[in-house]
Structures are given as C-alpha cells and as structure tokens.
C-alpha cells in the first residue's frame, strides 16, 4: 500500500492571473461555404434579372391604393380570424380535457371535422350556406342568409373556425404541460376550477402556447389568401384584379409577396416581445431585448470615449 504522503501532489506552479491570449481556431470550411453560397446567389440573381419581368413597375404598384387596402384587409381578417381561433380554441381545449364525456366527445368531433377537411372547402361551404339555411332567424334578428354572409363574415367563419381546431390542440398541449401540483395548490387555497384555469394554469401554459401560435398567425396571414375564392378583397384578390387590367401578372405577385414579407416580419418581432413577457419567472433573468442590447453597446461605446473627453 502506498503511503498517503506519497500521493500528495507537489505544489502546482503558480500561474500568473493574466488574460489568455490564444490564437483562435481557423474555420476554413465557413469561408468556403460562404463563397459557394454567394456564387449561387449571384447566378440566381442574374437569371431573375434576365427574365421577362418588368421590375420597374413593382415600386409603382407597391403603394397602389388597391394594393394597400388589400394588404389592410389581409391583416384585419387574419387578426380577427386568429382571435376567433384562439378564443374558440381555448374553449374547445378545455372541453376536450373535461371529465364530462359529452363535452369531450363534442370537442373531439369538432377537431376531427375541421382539421380533416381543406380550408378552401370550408370557406366555400360558408359561402354557400344559404343553400342549407336560406333564412337566418335568431329570434331577435331575421334576414336572408345571402344578405348576412358578406365576404368578410364568410372568410372570418371559414378561417376562424378552422383555426380553432388547430389552436385547441396547441392550447391542450400547453395546459397539459403545467405541473399538476399547480392545480392542487390553487384548489387547496380555495380557488375554483375556472379561477385556477384563468389565474394559474393558462398563464403558465402560455409559454408553451405562444411560439406555435405565432407560427399559426403567420400561416394565417398567408392562408387568408384563400378567401379570394369567396370574393374577399384581400391582397391576392386585389393583385389579381390589377394584373388582369395592367398585364403585369408576375409583377403583381411580387408586389403581394413584398407585402406578405413585410407583415410576417412585423409579427415575428411582435412575437419575440410577447414570448419574452410570458417567460417571466421561468428563468432567473430575462435576456435583454435587441433594443436594450443596442443601448448597452451605445453606452459601452460612450464610456470608452468619456475618459478621453475628461483628459
């Protein structure tokens, strides 16, 4: 057996506490990949610029009043349909998780139908709903169905009810992600089921719900273009209308794409801030927003310069 004293290591040479200055690893692969990608982009760019596309008209139509109102319609129908989808989706998710077999079956059938059929067909069904119910009679309100079902309402119902089916699955996953101990603690404090859901479960479920909901919304911005089939004057319908008179067909689709990209970019930024808000309490500190980061850099820059000023 070795003596214990044998195993005591000699005192380590003391390292001076100075900053390490090492030569970083070179990433040659990144440079090669970068050059290849730039080359490909140039080739694609040349191909597009040689195509028979009149790029000059794109700026002329970008702020055409028709296009702008079309983009506005796309935006508000998407927001409204999404709101309907989220609210109804929460209701259906709660029904689906209910212990009452009737409610959970109703929710299951709803999801089964609305997820299982194409949105375009659902839109066209609402468009033709007068074939089934020629007269709308709500007791206090009675009118011909064709008068009631404006393109906006048709698109809202078609897109919103379809979205609710998808949202309910997202919300259900969110609710189920919340630890059961949370519900128990809330019940033990005397909070009812409804209060527990609203105050304790849903706010925590949001962290799981929001990222896919952002995706759903961005999808909705684009899916809403299907509403042109029910005569909704949204972006694609407006672009098509203009292209049929101006003969600038592809150019008008480019214009529409620029608007879609603009809208989706804006909402990606909004989503970032919403996600951040609901991350409260899940980590010890929130990461800074890009704006805060920028301010910090500016401040650092300022503090580097200040000593010079003082001198």
């Amino acid at each position, binding site marked *: 057996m070795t003596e214990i004293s044998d195993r005591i290591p000699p005192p380590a040479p003391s390292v001076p506490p100075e900053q390490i200055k090492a030569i970083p690893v070179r990433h040659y692969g990144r440079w090669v990949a970068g050059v290849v990608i730039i080359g490909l982009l140039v080739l694609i760019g040349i191909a597009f610029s040689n195509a028979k596309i009149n790029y000059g008209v794109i700026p002329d139509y970008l702020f055409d009043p028709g296009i702008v109102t079309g983009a506005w319609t796309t935006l508000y129908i998407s927001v409204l349909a999404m709101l309907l989808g989220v609210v109804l989706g929460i209701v259906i998710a709660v029904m689906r998780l209910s212990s009452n077999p009737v409610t959970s079956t109703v929710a299951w059938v709803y999801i089964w139908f609305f997820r299982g059929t194409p949105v375009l067909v659902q839109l066209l069904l609402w468009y033709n709903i007068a074939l089934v119910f020629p007269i709308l009679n709500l007791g206090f309100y009675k009118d011909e169905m064709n008068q009631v079902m404006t393109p906006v309402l048709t698109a809202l119902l078609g897109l919103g009810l379809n979205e609710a089916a998808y949202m309910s699955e997202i919300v259900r996953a969110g609710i189920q992600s919340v*630890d059961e*101990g*949370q519900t*128990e*603690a*809330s*019940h*033990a*404090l*005397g*909070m*009812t*089921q409804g*209060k527990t859901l609203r*105050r*304790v479960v849903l*706010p*925590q479920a949001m962290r799981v719900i929001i990222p896919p909901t952002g995706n759903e919304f961005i999808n909705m911005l684009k899916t809403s273009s299907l509403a042109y089939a029910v005569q909704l004057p949204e972006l694609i319908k407006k672009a098509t209308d203009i292209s049929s008179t101006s003969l600038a067909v592809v150019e008008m689709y480019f214009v529409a794409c620029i608007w879609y990209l603009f809208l989706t970019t804006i909402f990606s930024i909004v989503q970032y801030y919403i996600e951040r808000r*609901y991350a*409260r*309490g*899940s*980590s*010890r500190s929130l990461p800074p927003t890009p704006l805060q980061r920028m301010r910090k850099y500016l401040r650092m820059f300022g503090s580097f310069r200040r000593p010079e000023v003082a001198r």
Partner: protein
Amino acid sequence: MTSLAKDIAPSTGGQPMVKAEAVHKSFGLSHVLKGIDLEVNPREVFCLVGPSGSGKSTFLRCINHLEKINAGRLYVDGRLVGYRQQGDKLYELKEKEVSAQRRDIGMVFQRFNLFPHMTALENVMEAPIQVKRETKAVARERAQQLLDRVGLGDRIGHYPAQLSGGQQQRVAIARALAMQPKLMLFDEPTSALDPELVGEVLDVMRDLAADGMTMIVVTHEMGFAREVGDSLVFMDDGVVVESGHPREVLMNPQHERTKSFLSKVL
C-alpha cells in the same frame, strides 16, 4: 414580535378540529386507506409518520377533499368534508361549497408548488384577492407582513425561481396563512430541501405552533416531532398502527412495525 397567525379563526365549539371515522380510500383496485380513525384537537400539533406509500399524503389530501373518500366519515371543525348529510342520505357538495371549505384549511406541499409566474408577494396576495375578494391594498399589506414574519421581507419581488428551496417553502407557508386558515396541513415540508435549509422552515413551523395553530404534519423529522408535536400517529399500509404522545411513541414503540421503521429513520 407579532405572531404569525394572529387571526386564527376560533373553532366553532368544543369538538375536535379533525375527526376521522373509519376512513377508506381506494384508487381503482389498490386499497390505500383501510379504516383510519383519529382525532386532532384544536391548537394541537399532530404528527403523522410512516413509511413511504403508507397513505399519509392520501389522508392529508382527503382532509381538504382533493381526494374523495370511499367510506367512513371525515369532519373538519364539526362539518362533514365534501358532503352534506340530510337524514341518512349524503349529498355531494357543489364546487363552490367545496372551495369554501378549503379556504379554512391551509396546505403546504413537499414540492412547494408556488406559482412560478408570480412574485413572492403576488403568490401570497393571490388567494385573498381572488377568493376572499379582499382589496389589493389590504391583501398587499397582509402579504408583506406575512413575508416579514417568515423572514423574507426583503425578497417580496423575487420570482420562485430566484429563491432557494427553503425560501420557497417559507413563501408557500405565508401563502397558506394569508387565507387565515384554522387548520394547516404539511405534507413532508422539508423533504425536498437541502439539509442546511431544513432548519429555517422548521423554525417557521415552530413559531406557528407556538401561536396556537392546529397543524397536521407529515414528516420524517423526528426531532421536530418530539420537540413540537403534541401527538403522533404511526401509519403503515393504510392503517394506524400506533399513536400517542410523540416522546412515548418514539422512545418506547410498542409494535414491531413501528420499531423497525424508527430504527431506519432515527
């Protein structure tokens, strides 16, 4: 120093705070509680010990009706838990009525179960505002006092993730106390804590006991049971094996099962 629980609601009479008569509970085919009889008197610290899986948590959860019992009777402060008896018929209470019963019973969990999206202060204010309809100002003042009492007056703005286990459990105790309960249930409140944090939670519980709170404590801290407990029940496999004064049972156990359990935890 002001007391932790200065407004403990007075018990409605001379009856026990908790009374269990032949309480049975099954989950499917597994029979977890096999006829529990016991009484907990007001202002008593009642310790419940026993091996894991013996049904201690299940029994606590029955007391505030987080679980429904299958047979027997369970009374808190003279009222049947979860049911109303008329003649010889039992009627299930509605959700609102069950919630109202739970208000008077505070519960502290092994894993704290604080609301992670709320600060310490918001955790403590939540139930008084939502359940008792207290105003924000009133709830805030009480919450601040309670957090001061448990030694966290300087941590009110922290989220649970920013607190140590011991601090979280103390917030959880303050949260339960904010409803001014007449009975507190503790389910292994220190079992999830690092050893050096156990003491701070036990200190708070000791203060609470000194203030006269009725407490049922499931614990493996035999030192606490001996020092603070007024009575102790040893449970195994869904039955009460032995009960008595903590010192009696811990120093001089009568049953083999008690002896073998105590030899493992002491």
